[in-house]
């Protein structure tokens, strides 16, 4: 008799599937790190209640590391980026000595926010628009108009309040809690698992920020499992139904990785490698020419990965030959608690960031980025302005998303319905699969630890 959480889909595992690739996948991909985390329902009130949201705002968001921007948002001294989370706001900037610093976005005189929400820009120093108090890029109070009236004020007491800031892989993270553990501790296995990727050298190619009609946790959950793919994305029709591994790491990391272009182990009569190749090729559209022939003994996955590496290599004028088949093709999604997702793969290069809407727990903000690899020796163009989409706007308005625009619409179309269902459902909570939905449980387990501490 299997214990809860021990059951797996019939057929091979993700790790077994990629072990058959011609190229050696990164060691971390072969790792199994599932843990049964219980099977209780997750109360709907954790999504819908204002009190719960308030409690998250008090005990969770001020204490965790959050991605504020990429380093390329602030390449030179005086460049700044505002990061807002609930009612909290931080200014991240680059100082004259090229250090990255972060401050609470509020004047030390009468509290005026120095920069507007989400702002990105440049200034020589931070000058409050109300009475003109001026702070250096290092946060020091420099100028105090009519200082005869403020004998009780000085740089020692009224410089900008600094908060923690650190970087990893080109991302700038902030933490409002000055006593918090280091970013390195917080990241856990992430740096080790990303050893074989060059994320620091990537740059933002597309950035879309959309308001979603669902609580931030449910928004994240829509991207944490591949269980929905068959129904929501009409997946599996081209017999390449994904084989997925779900893994949880201490304390803040979990992941899924699923194959692209492997045989669905549940099919009674498996397709030939050439049939698989045709299915993969079909995604690329007619402009791509004839479907390659899979040589005897080779797999469609390996042949297709070579095609992708060559075509992206030509597009970006770079060499991707060191990427394995799994790194090139698969959907590799890592989550860093509480609101950051990163896909280090070559053909699916996304980053997600979710934030609650402080005015209404039924809404959230979803920043979706596509990163492109770059040759760090060449000059880079600055990151694009984010395209802002409201609840009703389709992702297909964002050209940079290509065919994935329609896919993100499918993902987000369920959300308003879920919010409504949370409120009428008599059962009281979400029921989760033990294996495929374990990452959702991990998210709630971590939140609980913060709220109860």
């Amino acid at each position, binding site marked *: 008799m299997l214990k809860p959480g021990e059951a797996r889909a019939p057929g091979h595992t993700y790790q077994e599937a990629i072990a058959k690739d011609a190229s050696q996948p990164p060691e971390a991909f072969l790792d199994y790190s599932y843990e049964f985390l219980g099977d209780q329902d997750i109360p709907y009130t954790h999504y819908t209640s204002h009190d719960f949201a308030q409690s998250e705002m008090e005990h969770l968001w001020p204490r965790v590391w959050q991605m504020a921007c990429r380093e390329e948002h602030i390449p030179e001294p*005086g*460049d700044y980026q505002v990061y807002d989370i609930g009612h909290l706001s931080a200014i991240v900037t680059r100082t004259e000595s090229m250090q990255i610093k972060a401050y609470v976005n509020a004047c030390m005189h009468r509290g005026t926010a120095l920069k*507007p929400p989400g*702002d990105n*820009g*440049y*200034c*020589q120093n931070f000058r409050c*628009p109300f009475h003109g108090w001026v702070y250096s890029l290092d946060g020091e109070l420099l100028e105090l108009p009519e200082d005869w009236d403020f004998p009780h004020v000085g740089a020692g007491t009224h410089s900008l309040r600094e908060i923690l800031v650190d970087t990893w892989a080109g991302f700038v993270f902030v933490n409002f809690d000055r006593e918090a553990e280091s970013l390195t501790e917080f990241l856990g296995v992430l740096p080790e698992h990303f050893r074989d990727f060059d994320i620091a050298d990537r740059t933002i190619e597309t950035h879309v920020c959309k308001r979603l009609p669902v609580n931030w946790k449910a928004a994240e959950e829509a991207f944490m499992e591949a269980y929905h793919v068959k129904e929501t994305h009409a997946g599996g029709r081209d017999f390449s139904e994904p084989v997925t591994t779900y893994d949880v790491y201490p304390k803040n990391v979990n992941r899924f990785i699923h194959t692209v272009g492997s045989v669905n182990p549940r099919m009674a009569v498996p397709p030939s490698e050439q049939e698989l190749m045709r299915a993969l090729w079909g995604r690329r559209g007619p402009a791509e020419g004839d479907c390659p022939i899979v040589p005897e003994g080779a797999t469609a996955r390996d042949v297709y990965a070579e095609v992708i590496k060559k075509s992206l290599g030509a597009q970006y004028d770079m060499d991707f030959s060191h990427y394995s088949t799994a790194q090139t093709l698969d959907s590799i999604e890592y989550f860093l608690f509480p609101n950051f997702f990163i896909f280090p793969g070559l053909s699916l290069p996304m980053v997600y960031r979710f934030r609650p809407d402080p005015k209404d727990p039924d809404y959230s903000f979803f920043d979706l980025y596509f990163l492109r690899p770059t040759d760090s020796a060449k000059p880079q163009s*600055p990151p694009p302005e984010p395209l802002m989409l409201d609840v009703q706007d389709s992702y297909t308005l964002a050209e940079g998303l290509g065919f994935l625009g329609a896919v993100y619409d499918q993902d987000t179309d369920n959300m308003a319905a879920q919010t409504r269902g949370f409120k009428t459902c008599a059962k009281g909570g979400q029921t989760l699969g033990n294996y495929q939905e374990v990452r959702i449980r991990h998210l709630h387990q971590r939140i609980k630890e913060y709220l109860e501490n």
Partner: protein
Amino acid sequence: MVASDLEMDALASDSRKVIQHEGFCILVCNTGGVHYAIENRCTHQDTSLDEGRIRNGFIACPLHGVRFDLKTGQPRGDLTRIPVRTFAVKQTGDRLLVQMHKADPHNEATT
């Protein structure tokens, strides 16, 4: 009153010039090979824009950092809602024509 257009030499790439013309202080700039002309005055708190950093088609006011879209004059963020005046620029060879009497066709807010 119809102001006469401003004729001038094209600017080197990524350079800028401030010109007094017909009562306007005009900032002409070339960013990435494209010329723009805007009024050299921030609509937020009235300072000159010419020392602001230009990036991605925006100029950032050096005082409080409001960014204006060089093409449309529209501000980002909520410090001001007033667009900066823009002027259409026509380039013929090495010469520029900054059109004073016509608002920039992109700039609906100032028409």
